[in-house]
């Protein structure tokens, strides 16, 4: 066992279970129950990191999530995790850890060269240096590498993660003395209780002071019986290794439970999650989150071996590690005294320098009895040592004012602990809008004792400023009884004797920055924020440069940034800023506490929503047919649709060319099942359609279909589709694939909020029907092979008719509609028969060389006809008139349909509207980029006035040239008719630094009269 190990009674490490681990490639020993930090300290390791800006040696400061320095890369390969705090990594056998800072090496950090850079890196360094933004890309790589921080894994995460959604009557955050007592009282009252604690076992500070006394017994015994009783209560769940990282509206607690991180990778259960996210909706939340000790700010306070005083105590009592042999403690308060006595009794030489001149006589007596050398009225001017602390220079302080009044002794030490008081962990309280209250007596931002009882949030114990154990327990009992009565319960029994052996507290000294007798910035660097290398001088500089708001000071100096989020530094920073600004601390206030309290891995937030289960994927009933034919797919909303069907050796362009020509000259077939479908019934459906569509529906007879434009109330096109009249009181509406859900909600909203008197019932039937569109001059022949009970002749089954019949032995609705301009039949059958009917159509079409095609060919075919895609050729600012589709607007309908009134608004009716046109490039082989800007002259230098942009652009195999759709200001008037060019129709499409000459034409490139679909 290393010489730093002490067999402390009550320690939580198991000295019978030795472990080995590696740090930076070197093997070390530890014990079960260690953290990586305690094991490294036990091995005498001091320097673990280099600082962010100056490359200064840094070591462990804290014991938990407050740790700013000891950031580790844990494990390698796919399992690697960057930037874990060594203080939060439970040791297991075979653990592999690496430093994350220090470049090129930890021993030699380039930045540290004689502090060469230090005078060039003041507060606001990045803002000042990179005001010329062009410099940043050149230096970013070097700066990032030099700054350190770990590396993200480059392989996929092999772990799985889980989400748990649950309800509880009482959620208690923090399993220290107060949290345990609250859980006991609520549990005994029969409430459904969840107790969360971020550590591997409950106890909080009791684990660091196992010899304190509660009700006549040792704290360790009280703790054991409390945890035992909680585990015996079926209505109480205790979750350890579970960090509550956010508290949202209405008492939603988010917590991450580490299930397997503490196990050797080989021992982790396969197929079990690594971590679980708990989303707990609670009737009451009890914050028993405790407090974190903040260090004092003094010269060279960042030398390895300098910690918070409580960390020295915790490493001794909980982990059996005496960090040094000769220990110097510096304090402004009573909290360090118990630890000082413990360290002295464990064999350390302890000097306790208290900044106060009047100290607590009871504590003084106790620590002197243990052998502690107490010096009152002294502060540390600066520490000595570089890679490990070797001593400190004390100065005599004025009894009241924080100024130096004389010199003090120089004291040698190999570990140094300081305490400037406790900072309550108020974070969760503030996440949904609570503001902490500054308690001048306790020198802390606290959760007001009343919490926000109205919304069910209570604070107990140290988080409210009750730092004494007995006071905290008595307060917890009182507040928990209030909570119980608010739920109609009472605590059945007394909590028993809560008396402790603590002396009454003596007031702390209000000191944050220990003076060294020199002007700020002229002495040794005194760090406030260790992770971001923010010194007291930086805060002074920020104020001198006229930053006034603490939020601005934070951002200018980086105070409180980083993975520790200022848990040690914030209050010191606020207090120093307040002093420089000449304000009180509550006037300066705090920065904003936002979730997450401590870092949460993306995997946990994603849970099972990753990879194939990231989002539900919808497939058409014919999916297997497309896969079998080698289709390439593309996502369309949640759907995966066939994109094109390449044959051997074909690329996208070759396949699309073949597919297009088949549809235009022979027969093609496309899966249209994804279109949104809404079944509307009721005697007022016709009137309802009249109101929600621009078109008129009064005359549409059963057996007929109509294309409709749906507008928003601004008169802009929001969706389109074909609606069929099944019967006078029954219609089937189709919507765009992506708009189906939005349109359904839109229709329901109008029906429920404005026209509940209309007799209309709507049902989404998108998934109920499978649709195969048979397209091309030979489509009638194909359909005739497998459909005998519908008269398909042109005179009996006209364009825009639909018929009910049997296709391939299956009941079907066949629509004679066309999104290609060709003769086409869309066959709709029960989705369960979709695959069967598709194959039957393929069989029937074999002799006609039927060609399946995907979305790409569909787009080319519709663009050749100038058919719009809502959302591609429109963007929420196009009226039907802008699209030259006045034919689809029933202006004579008696009811003022949605959007109609807006046609007359001055802007909608005015000149200079962007309108849909076709564009033809001078060079027929150039396919314009979609999004290319339409401009008037080729020789302009940006920024040029834009007339519009290209919305759709393809190569048309039918025409043997490129075509494009665009929206262009005044575009309809610019169209050249019949090849007659007026000059106004000549524009340029600009993209990628090149302007291409284009002619503005009608958007209908193929079959302008529409004869082909009527054959």
């Amino acid at each position, binding site marked *: 066992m290393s010489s730093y190990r002490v067999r402390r009674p009550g320690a939580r490490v198991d000295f019978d279970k030795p472990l080995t681990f590696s740090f930076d490639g070197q093997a070390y020993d530890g014990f079960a129950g260690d953290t990586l930090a305690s094991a490294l300290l036990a091995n005498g390791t001091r320097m673990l990191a280099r600082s962010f800006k100056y490359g200064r040696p840094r070591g462990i400061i804290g014991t938990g999530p407050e740790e700013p320095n000891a950031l580790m890369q844990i494990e390698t390969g796919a399992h690697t995790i960057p930037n874990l705090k060594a203080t939060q990594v439970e040791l297991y056998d075979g653990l592999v850890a690496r430093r994350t800072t220090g470049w090129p090496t930890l021993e030699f950090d380039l930045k540290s060269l004689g502090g060469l850079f230090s005078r060039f890196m003041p507060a606001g360094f990045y803002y000042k240096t990179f005001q010329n933004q062009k410099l940043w890309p050149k230096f970013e790589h070097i700066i990032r590498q030099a700054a350190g921080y770990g590396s993200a894994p480059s392989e996929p995460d092999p772990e799985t993660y889980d989400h748990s959604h649950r309800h509880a009557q009482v959620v208690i955050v923090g399993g220290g003395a107060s949290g345990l007592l609250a859980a006991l009282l609520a549990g005994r009252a029969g409430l459904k209780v969840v107790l969360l604690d971020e550590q591997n076992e409950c106890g909080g500070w009791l684990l660091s002071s196992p010899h304190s006394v509660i009700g006549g017994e040792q704290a360790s015994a009280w703790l054991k019986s409390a945890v035992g009783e909680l585990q015996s209560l079926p209505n109480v769940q205790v979750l350890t290794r579970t960090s509550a990282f956010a508290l949202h509206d*209405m008492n939603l607690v988010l917590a991450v439970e580490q299930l397997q991180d503490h196990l050797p990778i080989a021992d982790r259960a396969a197929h079990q999650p690594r971590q679980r996210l708990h989303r707990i909706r609670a009737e009451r939340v009890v914050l028993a989150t405790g407090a974190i000790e903040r260090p004092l700010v003094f010269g060279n306070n960042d030398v390895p071996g300098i910690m918070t005083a409580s960390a020295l105590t915790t490493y001794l009592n909980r982990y059996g590690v005496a960090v040094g042999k000769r220990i110097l403690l510096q304090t402004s308060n009573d909290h360090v005294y118990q630890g000082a006595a413990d360290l002295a009794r464990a064999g350390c030489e302890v000097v306790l320098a208290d900044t106060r001149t009047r100290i607590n006589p009871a504590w003084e007596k106790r620590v002197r009895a243990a052998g502690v050398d107490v010096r009152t009225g002294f502060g540390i001017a600066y520490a000595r040592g570089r890679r490990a602390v070797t001593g400190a220079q004390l100065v005599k302080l004025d009894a009241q004012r924080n100024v130096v009044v004389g010199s003090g002794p120089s004291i040698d030490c190999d570990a140094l602990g300081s305490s400037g008081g406790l900072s309550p962990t108020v974070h969760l309280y503030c996440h949904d*809008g609570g503001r902490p209250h500054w308690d001048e007596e306790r020198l802390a931002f606290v959760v007001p004792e009343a919490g926000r009882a109205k919304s069910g949030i209570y604070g107990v114990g140290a988080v409210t400023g009750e730092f004494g154990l007995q006071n905290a327990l008595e307060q917890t009992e009182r507040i928990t009884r209030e909570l119980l009565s608010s739920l109609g319960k009472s605590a059945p029994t007394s909590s028993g004797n809560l008396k402790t052996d603590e002396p009454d507290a003596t007031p702390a000294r209000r000191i944050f920055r220990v003076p060294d007798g020199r002007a700020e910035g002229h002495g040794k660097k005194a760090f406030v924020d260790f992770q971001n290398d923010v010194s007291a001088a930086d805060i002074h500089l920020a104020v001198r440069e006229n930053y006034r708001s603490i939020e601005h000071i934070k951002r200018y100096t980086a105070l409180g940034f980083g993975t520790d989020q200022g848990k040690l530094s914030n209050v010191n920073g606020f207090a120093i800023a307040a002093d420089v600004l000449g304000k009180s601390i509550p006037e300066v206030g705090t920065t904003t506490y936002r979730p997450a309290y401590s870092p949460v891995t993306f995997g946990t937030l994603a849970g099972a929503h990753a990879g194939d289960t990231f989002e539900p994927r919808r497939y058409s009933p014919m999916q297997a047919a497309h896969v079998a034919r080698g289709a390439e797919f593309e996502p369309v909303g949640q759907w995966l649709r066939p994109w094109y069907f390449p044959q051997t050796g074909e690329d996208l362009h070759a396949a699309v060319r073949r597919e297009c020509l088949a549809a235009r000259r022979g027969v093609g077939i496309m899966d249209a099942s994804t279109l949104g479908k809404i079944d509307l019934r009721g005697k007022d459906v016709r009137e309802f359609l009249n109101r929600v569509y621009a078109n008129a529906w009064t005359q549409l007879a059963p057996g007929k279909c109509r294309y409709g434009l749906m507008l928003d109330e*601004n008169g802009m096109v929001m969706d389109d589709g074909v609606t069929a009249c099944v019967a006078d009181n029954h219609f089937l509406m189709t919507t765009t694939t992506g708009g189906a859900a939005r349109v359904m909600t839109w229709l329901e909203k109008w029906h429920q909020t404005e026209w509940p008197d209309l007799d209309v019932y709507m049902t989404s039937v998108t998934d109920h029907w499978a649709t195969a569109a048979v397209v091309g001059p030979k489509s009638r022949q194909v359909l005739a092979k497998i459909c005998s009970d519908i008269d398909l002749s042109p005179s009996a089954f006209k364009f825009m008719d639909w018929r009910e019949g049997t296709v391939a032995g299956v009941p079907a609705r066949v629509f004679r509609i066309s999104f290609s301009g060709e003769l086409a039949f869309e066959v709709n059958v029960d989705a369960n028969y979709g695959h069967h009917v598709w194959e039957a159509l393929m069989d029937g079409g074999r002799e006609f060389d039927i060609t399946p095609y995907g979305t790409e060919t569909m787009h080319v075919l519709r663009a050749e006809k100038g058919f719009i895609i809502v959302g591609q050729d429109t963007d929420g600012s196009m009226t039907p008139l802008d699209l030259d589709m006045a034919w689809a607007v029933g202006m004579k309908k008696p009811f*003022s349909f949605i959007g109609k009134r807006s046609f007359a608004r001055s802007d909608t009716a005015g000149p200079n509207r962007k309108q849909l046109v076709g564009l033809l490039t001078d060079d027929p082989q150039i396919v314009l980029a979609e999004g290319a800007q339409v401009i008037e002259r080729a020789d302009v230098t940006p920024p040029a006035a834009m007339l519009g942009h290209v919305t759709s652009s393809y190569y048309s195999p039918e025409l043997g040239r490129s075509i494009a759709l665009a929206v262009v200001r005044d575009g309809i008037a610019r169209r050249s008719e019949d090849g007659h060019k007026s000059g106004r129709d000549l524009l340029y499409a600009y993209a990628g630094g090149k302007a291409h000459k284009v002619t503005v034409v009608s958007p209908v490139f193929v079959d302008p009269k529409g004869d082909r679909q009527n054959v």
Partner: protein
Amino acid sequence: MFVLFCPHCGEKREEEEFGYGGEAFIPRPATPEALDDEAWGDYLFMRKNPKGWHWEMWSHNTGCRKFFVVKRNTATNAIAGSWTLAEGRKAYDAEGGST
């Protein structure tokens, strides 16, 4: 991420089941053509957007798909109540028809 009470289902449910339906009680003018551009523009675009209590509509998207009225404090997300459209209108009018 708050909880809403659906007056149609009679249950408190998580926010993710619902969709926001905008400010409540903006009736569509009965005769839009009778309005001048300014009045029509007010109907189209002008919303209260208060910091504080707000009468708004929500729809129970993954439940009953019904719209209903909620009085919510936009600054704190405190919720004063949920009503059906008709009952909400009465409650709104009882408060003098303003937020």
